Every structure is written in structure tokens, then in C-alpha cells.
């Protein structure tokens, strides 16, 4: 039977990808960031050993256009490409999917009234790509686990509520629990933390709120799920509202979780965080 072996929250800032590709791991400005992810990467490699990761992310106007923008979309393919989002493709290998497991998730989610857009092709941008090489080592040709991309619209309002994202996570948990084969599943919610890239308020950041979020997502997810979109954008910045994607991850975890590792760094315009959780024993 499939089971969830790790829940991760992670930012998806494009500059991290650039720093990674330019080998800035020891650059003084970037070293804290890469060192901050390292314990999580080791834990995932040595202890968690996931077979597949469901990664919750948003597209940034790369693969999906506003002519028909999906609210929720799920990859159901056996492979996914790296996208060119305006400055060339990142030098990362393409991703192997798990179509059979994806189809099971799709069947369960639709039966559970989550009407996903289902995708046989999905090119993945920094919303998906940023966290992957920070969490898992890859070779020139591949990754050590399969992926299932799950997209949430957070760029064109109306976006789903925090509560809806939390419920989607709970539905995912039911779907994962009902997959009969042995499968170790990691789930990653990406985005945030606080940042604003829009208007005169560009550069707004709220480190105190970020620290509270890292704690409350563990102990008070129900209360966080009650937060309105506007209140999230006021506290975390207009683009920081995307933290609702962490609630998909949290909804898929047990009521009681244990923190494995936490790291926070706010060098420029985003509160960058990684939070590793496991279900309480």
C-alpha cells in the first residue's frame, strides 16, 4: 500500500535556480541557502527513500496561457519536459512520471469532486524546477524518483481559497492511501514565503509572519485554512499569497506532524524557506 513518507514546504525563487546552474553553492551570498537545504536532501536520500514525489506548484505563464487557465491541473504522463520560460531551458534532465499512479490520483480526486484539468504534456517552469535539485541529487540524464506535477492557479484571481487547497490535500491523502501497490510517496508544497513583485509595494517582505507560518502550518493548519486570500496578500505580499500551495501538502499529512528540519533565509525580496515534516509516529 502506498504511504506518505515526507511532507516538504519549499520556496521556488528563480534566482535560486540561476545560482545553482552557475555553481554558486560556495558564494557567500548563496552558501547559507544551499547549506540550509542540505540536511533535508540527506534525510530524503538516506532515510525517506521516496519512490515518487507529488510536487504542488504554479506555472508562471509558461506552459499555460490565460486563454484557458486551469485552476487545478494534474500530470498524468510518463515524462515531463523542462520549459523555456523566456531565457532558455535550465540544464536539468527531464522528469520521469508515473502515469498509472497519476491516473489513480485523477480517478480518486474527480470522484471526490476535485475536477482537475488532466495533462498528457506539461513543460515545467521554475515553480516546479527550483526545489527539485535542492532536495534530490540528479545525474545528467535523470532523477532518483518519479514525479507527479500538481498545478494550482495562484497568478490570476480568483484563485482557490486556502481552505480549498487544504481540502485538496486531504483528498490526495485518501487517494494515496487507497493505492494498492507499495509506494513511498513524498509531497512537496512550493511557493512563498512572503514577497511582492507587483506595483509600488514591490519588495515587501514580512519575516515575522514567515516565522509564524513555519510554526503554524505544523500545529494550526485549520486556522491557516480559514485565512482569506486578501488577508494572506496583506500579510505576505500579493505574490506571497501563493503559500496556499503549502496547505495542499499539509492536508495530505497526518493531523500530528513532527518537524525534521527547518531553514529560513531572506536575502533579497522573498522569505526563502524549507520545512521538512513527517507524520507523527
Amino acid at each position, binding site marked *: 500500500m502506498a504511504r506518505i513518507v515526507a511532507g516538504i514546504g519549499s520556496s521556488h525563487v528563480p534566482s535560486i535556480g540561476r*545560482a545553482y546552474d552557475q555553481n554558486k553553492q560556495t558564494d557567500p551570498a548563496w552558501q547559507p541557502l544551499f547549506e540550509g537545504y542540505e540536511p533535508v536532501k540527506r534525510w530524503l536520500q538516506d532515510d525517506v527513500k521516496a519512490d515518487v514525489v507529488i510536487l504542488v506548484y504554479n506555472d508562471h505563464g509558461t506552459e499555460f496561457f490565460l486563454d484557458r487557465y486551469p485552476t487545478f491541473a494534474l500530470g498524468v504522463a510518463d515524462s515531463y519536459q523542462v520549459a523555456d520560460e*523566456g531565457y532558455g531551458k535550465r540544464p536539468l534532465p527531464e522528469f520521469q512520471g508515473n502515469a498509472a499512479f497519476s491516473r489513480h490520483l485523477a480517478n480518486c480526486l474527480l470522484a471526490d469532486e476535485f475536477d482537475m484539468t488532466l495533462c498528457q504534456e506539461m513543460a515545467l517552469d521554475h515553480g516546479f524546477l527550483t526545489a527539485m535539485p535542492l532536495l534530490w541529487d540528479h545525474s545528467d540524464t535523470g532523477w532518483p524518483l518519479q514525479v507527479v506535477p500538481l498545478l494550482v492557479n495562484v497568478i490570476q484571481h480568483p484563485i482557490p481559497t486556502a481552505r480549498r487547497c487544504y481540502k485538496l490535500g486531504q483528498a490526495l491523502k485518501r487517494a494515496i492511501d487507497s493505492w494498492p501497490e507499495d509506494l513511498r510517496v513524498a509531497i512537496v508544497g512550493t511557493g512563498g514565503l512572503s514577497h511582492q513583485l507587483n506595483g509600488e509595494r514591490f519588495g515587501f517582505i514580512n519575516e515575522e509572519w514567515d516565522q509564524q507560518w513555519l510554526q503554524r502550518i505544523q500545529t494550526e493548519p485549520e486556522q491557516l485554512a480559514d485565512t482569506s486570500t486578501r488577508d494572506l496578500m496583506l500579510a505576505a505580499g500579493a505574490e506571497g499569497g501563493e503559500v496556499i500551495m503549502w496547505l495542499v501538502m499539509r492536508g495530505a499529512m497526518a493531523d500530528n506532524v513532527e518537524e525534521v528540519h527547518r531553514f529560513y533565509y531572506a536575502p533579497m525580496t522573498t522569505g526563502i524557506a524549507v520545512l521538512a515534516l513527517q507524520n507523527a509516529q
Partner: protein
Amino acid sequence: MSTITTDIHWDIPGTYVFDLVLSQQGYAINKMCNSLKSQASRDEFLADSEAYMARYGLTEEQKQAIRDRDWLQLTQLGGNLFFFLKLAATLGYGLYQIGADMRGESYESFMQTRHVPGAV
């Protein structure tokens, strides 16, 4: 229950929430920017940006905001940052230059407000 309205007044200072009203207004801008996902398109834009903008039916006001590299104006006219970052990358502008412009300050003075300005 929250009140449901068709056009929400977000009332967040210095913020242009990209909702369906702005999305409709800026559709031509974002559609053009969306096309800049291949090197061939970026080269074509750089070779004749006026023809490229005309092909996508931008209004004169929208074209002028792009000629002026006026990112705040472009935002107010419905340009979505995630789309116009592709235009910015084509033109050689980075996110933090755009941000400093939108705040109405120089790149250098904006960077002084950051904890680790080297993390770019």
C-alpha cells in the same frame, strides 16, 4: 461568508491584483509576452519590435509603456509580471531593475534596502 462580487476592490496599497478585469485589459500584452518562449521569437521581437507589437494588437498606450520600459504603467494596463518578465529578459532587464523602477527609486538605492544584495 464573504461577500461575492464580480469586480473585487482589493484595496491593498501599491498593489494591482491580477484579476479577470486586468487580465482582459492586458490580454494582448500578455499574449505577446507569452510568445517569447523561444529564441526565434525573441530574435524576431528584437529585430522589429514595432511590427511584433502591431501583430498582437497592442493599444498605442500599451506600446508606449513597452517603448518607455515603464513596468509600473505596463502593470496598470494589465501586463502580468510573470508574462512581461519574458519581455524583460528579451530586452536585458532583470527582476530587481523592474522592481526598483516600480518603487520609483534607483537600482542602487533599492539594493541598499535588502539584507544580502549579493544574492542575485
